């Protein structure tokens, strides 16, 4: 059996660097659809990856278990599986456990065992910890403490499927044509490192939130220093990990809206802040001075999702590409417009958002292009109700 820890960051680098293709597709009416267009779109951006990582996050795939946390876990050995299951047993009510269906696929090698568990947490009576915090803690503990086990998906009614290979190969391997979801995000990876680790592929997941990321965070060290100060443990040596924790902190724990999240990780320049009306200026100055350690500096574009929304944002001087498009009730994000055109030749709107300005699709609401083609910080970003 393969030892995952042996291939995680073999050169012990500060961070493993990778560049990528990203794609996102959401039907804001909530109607599930097959991932077939997503696979084609990703295949069209084949050259943006190098076969050392691909993955998908799909929302709405487990309607029979809407309230259960679906844990996707990869193991290097049966022993690791036994150890993990013994760990889960007292802490969770495990409704169902099964091996995730896969098929033998050319180009997919050294695959780990992949299992999924539909669970409800058993939180100790006197404990004041919230269910979500309990879940996060358990996930981080399995990943940090059990050798050869890695939880790579932990949300409700959603799943992450990822590994080492081109995205189209990963889709085939995990038989993703058999799933239907209302949000799909996808990633093709181009790490500079020749070794790749299944757990290091994108999307990264923390409960319902997932992120796919193109680019490199030049500020990784500063971001990591900040997050470790408030208790996150960065163990995976990839810059996307700090992004995941930033999402967890700002969106899940602090419950700040996605517009504010974008202004934390990709804030306006001070000269822009100086021109804002007083209330805005005070808010943005506070955000920058308090969360300066979360400013994600360097080139990036990301697509973040949970079950009810899909958000795309780039670094503030947009050093990585991002195209957004809508057609009827469908919202698309892509590293390249051609991939969107490939799956939908006719589009209602196509635009490239301004650096740092988020494009947000929510269930029942599509983004308005004009609001993200400009760096207009004087209004928050409203949404219109979809037809």
């Amino acid at each position, binding site marked *: 059996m393969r030892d995952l820890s042996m291939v995680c960051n073999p050169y012990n680098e500060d961070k493993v660097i990778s560049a990528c293709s990203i794609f996102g597709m959401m039907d804001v009416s909530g109607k599930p659809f097959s991932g077939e267009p997503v696979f084609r779109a990703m295949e069209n951006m084949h050259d943006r990856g190098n076969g050392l990582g691909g993955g998908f996050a799909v929302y709405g795939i487990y309607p029979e278990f809407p309230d259960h946390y679906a844990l996707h876990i990869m193991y290097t050995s049966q022993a690791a599986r036994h150890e993990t299951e013994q760990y889960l047993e007292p802490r969770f009510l495990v409704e169902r456990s099964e091996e995730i269906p896969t098929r033998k696929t050319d180009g997919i090698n050294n695959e780990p065992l992949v299992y999924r568990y539909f669970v409800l947490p058993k939180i100790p009576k006197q404990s004041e910890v919230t269910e979500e915090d309990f879940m996060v803690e358990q996930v981080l503990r399995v990943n940090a403490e059990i050798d050869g086990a890695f939880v790579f998906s932990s949300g409700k009614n959603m799943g992450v499927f990822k590994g080492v290979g081109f995205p189209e190969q990963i889709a085939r391997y995990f038989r993703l044509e058999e799933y239907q979801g209302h949000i799909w995000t996808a990633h093709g990876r181009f790490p500079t490192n020749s070794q790749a680790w299944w757990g290091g592929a994108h999307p990264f997941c923390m409960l319902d939130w997932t992120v796919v990321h193109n680019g490199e965070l030049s500020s990784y060290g500063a971001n990591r220093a900040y997050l470790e100060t408030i208790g996150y443990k960065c163990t995976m040596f990839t810059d996307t990990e700090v992004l995941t924790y930033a999402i967890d902190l700002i969106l899940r724990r602090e419950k700040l809206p996605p517009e504010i999240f974008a202004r934390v990780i990709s804030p306006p320049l001070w000269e822009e802040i100086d021109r804002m009306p007083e209330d805005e200026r005070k808010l943005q100055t506070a955000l920058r001075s308090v969360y300066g350690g979360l400013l994600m500096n360097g080139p990036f574009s990301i697509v973040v999702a949970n079950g009810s929304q899909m958000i795309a944002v780039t670094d503030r001087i*947009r050093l990585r*590409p991002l195209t957004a498009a809508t057609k009827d009730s469908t919202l698309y994000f892509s590293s*390249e417009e*051609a991939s969107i055109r490939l799956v939908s030749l006719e589009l209602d709107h196509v635009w*490239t958002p301004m*650096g740092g300005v988020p494009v947000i699709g929510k269930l029942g609401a599509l983004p308005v292009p004009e609001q993200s*083609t400009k760096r207009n910080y004087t209004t928050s970003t409203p949404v219109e109700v979809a037809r």
Partner: protein
Amino acid sequence: MSIATSIEIDAAGLYYKELNAQIRDAVSEGALKVVLKNVTGQRYIGTNLYGTVDRDTLRKLEIEIHGTPGNDLGMFLDGPTITVHGNVMDGSGNTMNHGRIVAHGRAGDITGFSARGGEMFIKGNAGYRVGIHMKEYGDMRPVMTIGGATQDFLGEYMAGGVVIILGLTLKPGEAHYCNHVGTGMHGGMIFLRGNIEPHQIGTGVGMPELTDKDAELLTNYIAEYGRLFDTDVSEIKLEDFTKLAPLSVRPYKQVYAY
């Protein structure tokens, strides 16, 4: 040789290398017009034609694209005219030497990056860093005409050439939304139609009056834009243009201690 002077290639499912090889073959066999159908993101179209036929023939070559060409469209282009019936992505006209790119849609980031010659016409908006580091040399001077508006860093590092922004996609009275226009500009000029605030323009960029030569150049390119895209340009008045040009060819002299 019995090849038709016009040839059509279905690009659907073709990898860029394959597609570009087919175009190259067609041109070296005498095609003067190549029509590409179903283009979906193939890169470097028009890049590898140098040396296929003599220079004058290359300058007569037309490439017509239906679909969405990939990044670096017409990179190092040296003669042909590329017409795109749709949008172009990032880096079109990259380091272009001679020729023409016409896009009946919008353009992505770094359009015209480092171009030294040739002409580009974009019907709609364009993305970030348009015209970045365009330059001119001898009698080679690139001219880029954008029908809509652009995003930040328009004309950054610009060392020569001409960028014309018509602002046709802006609503009446609406200001341009590009910031940091012309930062580091040390050559060339930008003609921008519509309102722009002083804070949007980089330091070291001046606003000289239009000369008669400028007016002539603008009039010609506006007319050509109207003809290419079959657009009524009679509303476009020369007095609505702001000319941006560098105040110094050495904008950063003061920064260094010798």
